[in-house]
């Protein structure tokens, strides 16, 4: 139930996220030392253009990738198809995009 465009979008978003994910894992391993605090996280990210671009790209790519992935699972295991499947994918993607952008703004805007 994936046309060529969704298939390619899934691969392209995956390729974009490979360096981002490895970077995110590295940051987690670095940041978790001595525990986490809001001040520590925000001190690193607030007002930083680099983190804004890094996580902004990450949020857009993951909203695409997760909604297409969920579409495949919902189709293959629950048998959802046609219009309902389209609506499901778009709702999942837009929800992730909206929540992700809100989180992005919360931690990076000065």
């Amino acid at each position, binding site marked *: 139930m994936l046309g060529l465009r969704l298939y390619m979008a899934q691969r392209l978003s995956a390729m974009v996220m490979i360096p981002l994910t490895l970077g995110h894992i590295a940051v987690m391993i670095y940041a978790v030392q001595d525990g986490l605090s809001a001040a520590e996280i925000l001190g690193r990210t607030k007002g930083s253009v680099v983190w804004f671009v890094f996580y902004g790209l990450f949020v857009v790519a993951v909203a695409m990738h997760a909604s297409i992935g969920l579409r495949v*699972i919902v189709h293959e295991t629950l048998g959802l198809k046609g219009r309902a499947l389209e609506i499901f994918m778009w709702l999942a993607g837009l929800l992730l995009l909206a929540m*992700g952008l809100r989180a992005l703004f*919360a931690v990076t805007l000065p």
Partner: protein
Amino acid sequence: MIRPHRSHPLWIAYLLHRLSGLGLALFLPAHFYMLALALDQPDKLDQFLRFADNPLVKIAEFGLVFLLAVHVFGGLRLLALEFLPWSPRQKTFAASAVGAAFLVAGTFLLQAV
């Protein structure tokens, strides 16, 4: 009973990729929600981060990092499979398939005419 194809390592690789992807997709809204607390309820975020110092939460976080890492590495495997050039052996198999099909069809044609 586990059906035979389901004990194949590649089936397990597929299952691991699917389950880790599903788990990550379900975790993301919670992750985004917590981060967005920094916007208007910073004290609630700190309260949550103190709760996250709990060793049991650390173990759960280990699980999340594992899901993310295993999904990335499994994804690299898929991308390599789909986009990297074929090895000489794979090309030989593909060419052999066409050659064998031509032989079978040619035998049929020789018998048919």
